[in-house]
């Protein structure tokens, strides 16, 4: 599979490690996510991605839960 292919985080399966390219969540939220470590070029690992529930990722040694909608707005490669 092409690792450089840019896609939303929501399409990344559990166990995969990807790099953040851009966050398109609107100003306030972008900044909040940045403060929690979700900025461009950060490596994140998807811990859980079920189709129905929220989304769990590891970023900079902390575990963060994201709403499904949020995971759509984070572009990764």
């Amino acid at each position, binding site marked *: 599979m092409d690792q450089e292919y840019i896609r939303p985080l929501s399409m990344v399966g559990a166990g995969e490690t990807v790099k953040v390219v*851009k*966050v398109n*969540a609107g*100003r*306030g*939220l*972008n*900044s*909040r*996510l*940045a*403060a*929690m*470590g979700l*900025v*461009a*070029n*950060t490596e994140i690992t998807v*811990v*859980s991605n*079920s189709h*129905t*529930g*929220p989304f*769990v990722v590891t*970023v*900079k*040694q*902390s*575990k*963060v*839960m*994201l*709403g499904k*909608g*949020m995971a759509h707005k984070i572009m990764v490669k």
Partner: protein
Amino acid sequence: MKKIVVALAGNPNSGKTSIFNMLTGARQHVGNYPGVTVEKKEGLCRYADHEIKFVDLPGTYSLNAYSVEELVARNFIIDEQPDVVVDIIDSSNIERNLYLATQLIEMNAPLVLAFNMSDIAERKGLRFDTEQLSRLLEAPIVYTIGNKAGGKAELLDAICKIVERPTNRHPHIVHYGDEIEEELEKIGPIVAEKERRLTEKYGPRWLALKLIEQDTDITAKVRSQDVLNAAKAGAEHLRKIFADEPEIVIADRRYGFISGACRETIKSTVESRHSTSDRIDAIVINRILGLPIFLILMYIVFLLTFKIGRYPMGWIESFFRWAGVTIADLWPAGSESAIKSLIVDGIIGGVGGVIVFLPNILLLFAAIALLEDSGYMARAAFVMDRIMHKIGLHGKSFIPMLIGFGCSVPAIMATRILENKRNRFTTIMVLPLMSCGARLTIYMLIIPAFFADKVLVGAGIFTIRTQALMLWLIYLIGIVLAVVCAKVLRLTLFRGETTPFVMELPPYRMPTGKSIAIHMWHRGWMYLRKAGTVILAISIVLWLAMTYPKPPAESLRDLDAGQARQAALKYSIVGRVGLAMEPAIEPLGFDWKIGTALIGAMAAKEVFVSQLGIVHAVGDGEGGTQNLRKQLQNSYSALTGFCIMLFCLISAPCVATVAMTRHETNSWRWAIFQFAALTALAYIITLIVFQIGELARTFFA
């Protein structure tokens, strides 16, 4: 003795509160859930000829002023100018935690870095070159273990050292790259010239930085159009260069600075592997196992709160009964003193009514502290979020709702676990619809009186019986109404996005007995001091209304005890109000007797049963209950019986609930709104049910 002020800043879950407790021994809760510390907390500590006032700032990830907590923390540091700011850093998660530190450095705050939970970092195999890192960050670093009181003296020494020898510091250490630096140099002098007052307070570089970041709070403070134009042009210019918002680029540069500093100074000797937390999470937030585990834990919380709470509640009740009898004995037998009645029935009864909730509240908050401190609460929100989200509530709303089946008073207090105000208020408003334990006593009186226990379907243990079905139906109606009302409230009064869901799942930690004890003490005391006084006052007023005015003695002469009590109640204010409102409740199938009992039920729902006994002039005890049921059968139809239960379920929460809502929403307006809206809802629904029922009855007859 030199007086100094020290602010504690730090990320949620960095163990900030445990450091605060370690330093001050304050009665304060140690949370393990993001955003639990919202209020400003202070504590005193004497050390080496200093009187240090510690202020616990809200836990935040940054100081960008996008949330109330961030703004509170930032403004405190700028406006109050604390002598020292201690940034508590989770040393097993340095990079993310240092982001806040860079912002404190930008603000030129006199900083001490407390690398907390250093034991966990050590176990994780992290080695720090403290001297080098301290030089790069231009702040002293102290290692602490908050929950084991490690590093207390070292931290206090570092604080005193800063106060005694303020070093000359230069705020330029975070370099944001040429393009941004250029803009800062352009805007800085304009700000310094046009906004003297602001510059004096904030410094030109920091102001310029915030303006480029388009910080709403600072932008609103700037008056000069020249400054605003320059900032706008600068931001626009940077946006073109980077094809991104300037604040995101700046955030990126801060992380760049951090990873630069960490790369040289932090060595990891152990390869990161799956931690215990990950292994627990694999089970606890598992798609299949997550929900059952959550439900079992909730069941345990419920059992702990109410089943175990029943024993101390029993002792408290017996104690107050004993106290009442003992004090009543001080008066000569047979005398009917008004003061005796006030003290025994009004005050002792009222105080007992307040204290009786205390075991529930203490046990519930012990359970909540355990869930929060261990880190499970964040997972509970995760597991329940999908279901609760559909109603427009947060995953964590489930916990107070469940507790509501036991008692609304601790349940409303438990909504403190919700940080979003809209979610919290919606939950409080619909909570009384969860049928509490006190209302069960009403159903237990009514159901056997009107519904014979016939087997409807099934056989053996798999049968559905009439009485069980009725009870189940009443509970179900409450739940359905709560869901509908929550939905309606979220679409009207509390409209707005549910906060987009981003939440940290903190690592699991072993809760300490001390922190749980502090938490219980804190909540129990708050209940007694704040809500308890209001409950007591309203109960005494209600008692007065049920006792006065007394009927003239000669009118009671030929009556037996039961009839005398009936006459006295009928003569009192409550009895008169009951009579006066009979026309209003007649369409619900109620008479003045039920009306009077309903008013009494405002003191506490179970009072409805004893009041109904009095107005029907039957005695106490089990024989009394049987007599009362017979009386009810003779006086009312089964439809009225059902309507009584329906009305009691929905209407007017008891005074304790009203007082609690007032306390937790901090306004009488919400308490009155809840009271009025629920009563109106009860009236409408009962009216419809009774009228349709009557119509159906005449039609089929």
